[in-house]
């Protein structure tokens, strides 16, 4: 996989479901400050991910963890990240199903919608992460391009007063919003620890993560600020899909309107990439946990389990919205911050002790 493909995968992953489900709304008019703060905080945590991926050059994350944390310790970390991918995949799939049922196919059972999506994702991961990377490289420009054009077209409906005054409610809502944005979507990229293959020489993992965060973050910033500028913070906060509603206000002349349909297509493309990456992480992680090199035979059973998990979860939209806004930040931060931080501390201690050992051997040898 090339550096460019890896960056675009992170961009599309970040854009994913967050095009429609806007986080950080607690900050209301200061949402832009919350997102920027969230990006800075995420960049710091991402440097930990980078360190974990590059601690042992030429080895992937699984091998690195087993080397530094031992077989059991390494497998515990991999288990948590695999569960994270599996659970998040089910959540994103459920959000996708609910979105399609709400805005389009009202009579269609959700199980049909999510089964079709998961079948396409299963086919994509059967061909491997490199193929997903190449596919994504072609579509990321379409997604970003459409979003930018829509923002320009909707600019006539923007009211800058919706963002003023700054710091209207103090710092606390901004920090709350920043925490929300950090855990969804920025640090969900922890999934890439078990998704990225061994990179070839010359690929900078640091650049992959940080450039991906920067591009994805700017897109999220632009769409979220547009939502607040067009709808106002109070209305945007109370909506399930504020970006979809924002784009539905585009009405230029008598011929450019109903662009929310394209927003829905863009959402489907971005969500497809996100679900595919998470499913790949779940299959790859499970295979490595069980000591098997080829993950492909696990695709069908894991897809079935994801669909089951999606069906078991509540289909109450209000509960799910509350869950995403209030619960995810705590649940997600366990996998996104605490687990990588724990692994990072152990890796650093082990590297230090190994260096000291080598130094002592060299000194004794001399």
């Amino acid at each position, binding site marked *: 996989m090339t550096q460019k493909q890896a960056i675009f995968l992170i961009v599309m992953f970040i854009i994913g479901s967050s095009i429609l489900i806007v986080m950080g709304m607690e900050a209301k008019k200061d949402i832009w400050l919350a997102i920027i703060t969230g990006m800075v905080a995420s960049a710091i945590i991402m440097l930990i991910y980078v360190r974990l991926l590059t601690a042992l050059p030429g080895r992937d994350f699984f091998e690195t963890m087993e080397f530094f944390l031992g077989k059991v310790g390494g497998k515990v970390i991999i288990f948590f990240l695999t569960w994270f991918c599996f*659970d998040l995949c089910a*959540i994103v799939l459920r959000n996708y199903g609910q979105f399609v049922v709400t805005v389009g196919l009202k009579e269609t059972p959700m199980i049909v919608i999510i089964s079709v999506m998961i079948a396409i994702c299963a086919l994509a991961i059967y061909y491997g992460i490199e193929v997903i990377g190449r596919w994504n490289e072609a579509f990321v420009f379409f997604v970003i391009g459409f979003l930018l054009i829509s923002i320009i077209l909707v600019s006539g409906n923007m009211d800058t007063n919706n963002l003023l005054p700054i710091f209207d409610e103090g710092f606390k809502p901004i920090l709350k919003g920043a925490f929300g944005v950090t855990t969804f979507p920025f640090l969900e990229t922890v999934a890439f620890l078990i998704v990225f293959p061994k990179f070839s020489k010359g690929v900078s993992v640091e650049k992959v993560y940080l450039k991906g965060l920067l591009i994805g973050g700017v897109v999220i910033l632009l769409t979220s600020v547009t939502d607040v500028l067009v709808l106002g913070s109070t209305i945007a906060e109370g909506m399930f899909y504020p970006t979809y509603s924002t784009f539905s206000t585009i009405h230029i002349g008598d011929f450019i309107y109903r662009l929310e349909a394209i927003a829905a297509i863009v959402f489907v493309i971005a969500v497809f990439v996100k679900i595919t990456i998470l499913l790949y992480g779940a299959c790859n992680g499970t295979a490595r946990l*069980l000591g*098997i090199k080829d993950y492909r*035979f*696990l695709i*069908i*059973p*894991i897809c*079935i*389990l994801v669909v*089951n*998990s999606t*069906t*078991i*979860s*509540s289909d109450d939209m209000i*509960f799910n919205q*509350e*869950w995403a806004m*209030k*619960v995810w930040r*705590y*649940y997600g931060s366990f996998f996104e911050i605490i687990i990588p931080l724990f692994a990072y501390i152990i890796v650093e201690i082990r590297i230090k002790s190994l260096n000291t050992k080598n130094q002592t051997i060299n000194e004794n040898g001399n």
Partner: protein
Amino acid sequence: MKIAIIIILYVIVTIPSIISLKNKNKNKEIKIFSVLIATGLILSLLITLGVDIPSVDEIVGDLVLSMLGE
């Protein structure tokens, strides 16, 4: 009727994979595959029968919201 459809779908999906794994003599993979498929089938049947299975998300949600005092 629904249960019959689910079982038929599982058989259609599962058989080719098991045959393919057997041809490659991958016995460990067949065992793992069978356990996961069986879990999926049991869950699907329970869902179809209307059994209320608590999801991890709901348990975590209740726990976190009660800790937050909501």
